[in-house]
């Protein structure tokens, strides 16, 4: 057996069924071994697509996603995808080919220091230098990727190691691996749990922020139970969306920069903040000094480094969100047998009434009849269609990054965990489409809808090829305003409307592009057509692209960066006025410039030395 076969065997041992990748010279033995294996290989159009697809697969399934790229450019193309997974704690194993060990350091063809490049964006990485190390390394990589706070692990695999003879008898796959420096804490400290329980009972105005950690820990059941037991309202972060059913009476929606009014107000006025599996990013807290100013803070996180990093914490609990919540619930039930004591709290009743009134008074308008279409209307129709077609429990959304993402995060109600897939921490445009591929592969029976903007869509538009080749039936909804809407909104709000490089022209025609790939497509310009087209797309068992032409003046309510969460401002309704210069104009400018420079007034005409000239 060769090293490459041993590697494939090791992947199979980990339960890997599918890998996303792109071959290359340094991976030839690997792909040759793949020929004989039962692993499904999805050939993407770009390594970045492979990494995002593996990431989407991991987020939906909870299993480790695997992506592969060759040495050099293959490795660097994976980087954005791996960094995206790292920022959102998604379990990934990224494999890169490498030049043979004897050539490492010689600047060989397609050689790059992959180990060095990946180091700051992975939980850990390895370079395997001898085939006998393959089984142990692959075991360690998967163990590290999926346990504790999950994250990507990178393995650099030189070509000669893949070719090297390997004896499976003398190097069996180890059942257990020893990582002396790696012992994640999963169980919360009983004393801390007791303190949390007391704080929960004593609080009058508690609120929970549920982060991505609740989704990762599969802690939805416990979260709902905890919230209901103590009548604690729940808001979520972007990554926490889906961890608490958003139609639940205690749900407040998303908190933060693009959060809902009830959520932002609740956090600003609470006397107890229970943060579960969230890391208090600047997009959640706004001005950190005025964040939750009256609150005692309980912070539950599996990563000790997150506790106290951004917000000072009163009761830290290091542990797995699910297990800690379970312990809190059982301790609560012991402290007050029926949970009645908690509910009898006078202050809390008023608190819930107050939040309820906020919720009622801030129901957003969504049923606009305008042309061009308002994005809110599409979100509304999408929710209605899901209801109508009874797709609630078999439906997954992936979003791209920017306005499309925030419209979905703000208005779209998610019911189930791991069904709202979005790039949060890194905010990677181009994530949505390849992530949808991964999501569909992870749950083939579910309907997968990729909501994207025209900008993010074009960043990985090549993955239409992957979708077409395999016939992966995902529905792509482009919120098409030919504008980099989020940047455009900020320029209008904070840079006096000086729109700079945020406008796209009319090409391409996305419907024609899709048809070029053999993908069904429709353009929708009339709001009354939205529902029918969405239905058709969702009921068809083929890939389907819908190009929604939306109003480019539409923005999102937001809290300006670094301000208090209650300072929610409305977007400026402005239409793009930026003119895209033609190449002829650019050419004129370029040539004109160079002529000007040669007779520039600033440089004295009488000098001769070229050294002197450089001094000016």
């Amino acid at each position, binding site marked *: 057996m060769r090293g490459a076969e041993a590697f494939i065997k090791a992947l199979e041992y980990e339960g890997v069924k599918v890998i996303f990748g792109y071959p290359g010279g340094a991976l030839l033995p690997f792909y040759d071994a793949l020929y004989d294996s039962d692993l499904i290989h999805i050939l993407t159009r770009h390594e970045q697509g492979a990494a995002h697809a593996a990431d989407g697969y991991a987020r939906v399934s909870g299993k480790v996603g695997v992506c592969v790229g060759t040495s050099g450019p293959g490795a660097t193309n994976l980087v954005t995808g791996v960094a995206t997974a790292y920022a959102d704690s998604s379990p990934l194993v990224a494999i890169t080919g490498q030049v043979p060990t004897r050539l490492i350091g010689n600047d060989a063809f397609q050689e790059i220091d992959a180990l060095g490049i990946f*180091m700051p964006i992975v939980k850990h990485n390895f370079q395997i230098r001898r085939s006998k190390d393959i089984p142990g390394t692959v075991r360690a990589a998967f163990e590290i990727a999926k346990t504790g706070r999950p994250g990507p692990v990178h393995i650099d695999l030189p070509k000669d190691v893949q070719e090297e003879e390997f004896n499976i008898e003398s190097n069996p796959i180890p059942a257990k691996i*020893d990582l*002396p*420096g790696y*012992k994640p804490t999963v169980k919360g400290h009983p004393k801390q749990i007791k303190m949390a329980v007391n704080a929960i009972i004593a609080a009058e105005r508690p609120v929970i922020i549920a982060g991505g950690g609740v989704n990762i820990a599969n802690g939805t059941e416990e979260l709902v139970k905890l919230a209901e037991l103590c009548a604690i309202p729940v808001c979520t972060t972007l990554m926490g969306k889906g961890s608490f059913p958003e139609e639940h009476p205690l749900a407040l929606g998303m908190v933060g920069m693009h959060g809902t009014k009830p959520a932002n107000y609740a956090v600003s006025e609470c006397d107890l903040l229970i943060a579960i599996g969230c890391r208090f990013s600047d997009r959640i807290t706004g001005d950190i000094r005025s964040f939750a100013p*009256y609150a005692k803070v309980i912070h539950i996180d599996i990563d000790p*480094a997150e506790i106290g990093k951004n917000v000072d914490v009163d009761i830290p609990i290091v542990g797995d969100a699910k297990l800690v919540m379970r312990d809190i619930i059982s301790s609560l039930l012991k402290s007050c047998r029926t949970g009645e004591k908690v509910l009898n709290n006078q202050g809390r009743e008023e608190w819930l009434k107050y939040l309820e009134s906020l919720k009622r008074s801030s129901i957003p308008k969504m049923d606009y009849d305008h042309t061009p279409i308002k994005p809110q209307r599409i979100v509304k129709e999408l929710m209605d269609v899901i209801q109508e077609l009874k797709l609630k429990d078999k439906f997954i959304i992936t979003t791209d990054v920017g306005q499309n993402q925030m419209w979905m995060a703000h208005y779209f109600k998610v019911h189930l965990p791991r069904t709202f897939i979005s790039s949060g921490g890194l905010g990677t445009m181009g994530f949505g489409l390849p992530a949808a591929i991964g999501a569909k592969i992870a749950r083939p029976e579910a309907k997968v809808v990729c909501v994207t903007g025209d900008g993010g869509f074009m960043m990985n538009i090549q993955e239409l090829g992957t979708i077409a080749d395999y016939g992966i039936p995902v529905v792509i909804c482009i919120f098409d305003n030919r504008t980099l809407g989020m940047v455009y909104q900020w320029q209008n709000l904070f840079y006096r409307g000086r729109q700079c490089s945020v406008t796209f022209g009319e090409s391409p025609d996305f419907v024609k592009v899709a048809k070029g790939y053999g993908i069904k497509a429709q353009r929708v310009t009339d709001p009354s057509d939205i529902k029918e087209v969405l239905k058709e797309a969702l009921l068809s068992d083929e890939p389907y692209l819908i190009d929604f032409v939306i109003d480019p003046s539409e923005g999102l309510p937001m809290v300006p960066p670094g301000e208090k969460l209650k300072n929610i401002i409305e977007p400026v309704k402005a239409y793009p006025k930026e003119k895209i210069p033609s190449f002829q104009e650019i050419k004129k400018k370029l040539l004109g410039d160079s002529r000007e420079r040669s007779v520039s007034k600033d440089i004295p005409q009488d000098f001769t030395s070229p050294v002197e000239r450089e001094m000016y």
Partner: protein
Amino acid sequence: MRRHSKKEEVSTHIISALVLNNPGVLQRIAGLFTRRGYNISSITVGTTETPSIARMTIVVKGNDKILEQVVKQLNKLIEVIKVSDLDVDKCIKRELCLIKIHTPDESSKSQIIQYTNVFRGKIVDLSPESLTVEITGNSDKINAFIELVRSFGIKEMARTGLTALMRGPKVLKSKKS
């Protein structure tokens, strides 16, 4: 209003870390410090009684909040086995310095030899116009010696950076044992 309890004042800390003696581990740790904007004053690495484990001594400046993060982030690294922020008053700190001093005549040579004796250093090399001194101690002592001989002319100098161990029987143990 909640109070920010942690001390804001910046002080020097000595971090002792046991790490797996793997290739790349130094880069991983140095990279962490760069990426998170922590200030390293010095870093020393050497093997320990267990060949597979190395000890790193990192001198870092920062306030309590930053130090807490440094220790936690170091602990997150898979190859880091154990980290401790040593109590500066309760540990032995040593640094070694080699100094090549300009000594063209006998009088300057004898003066340097005298100084070296006072500082309990060693003359480790001698040539007609120079003299190399090895001096060990804490950083203050070494700084004092350098200041003392500066007027003679320091031709070259090499300092190792600080290394340290806790006093008493307590040891930094790996989690495994």
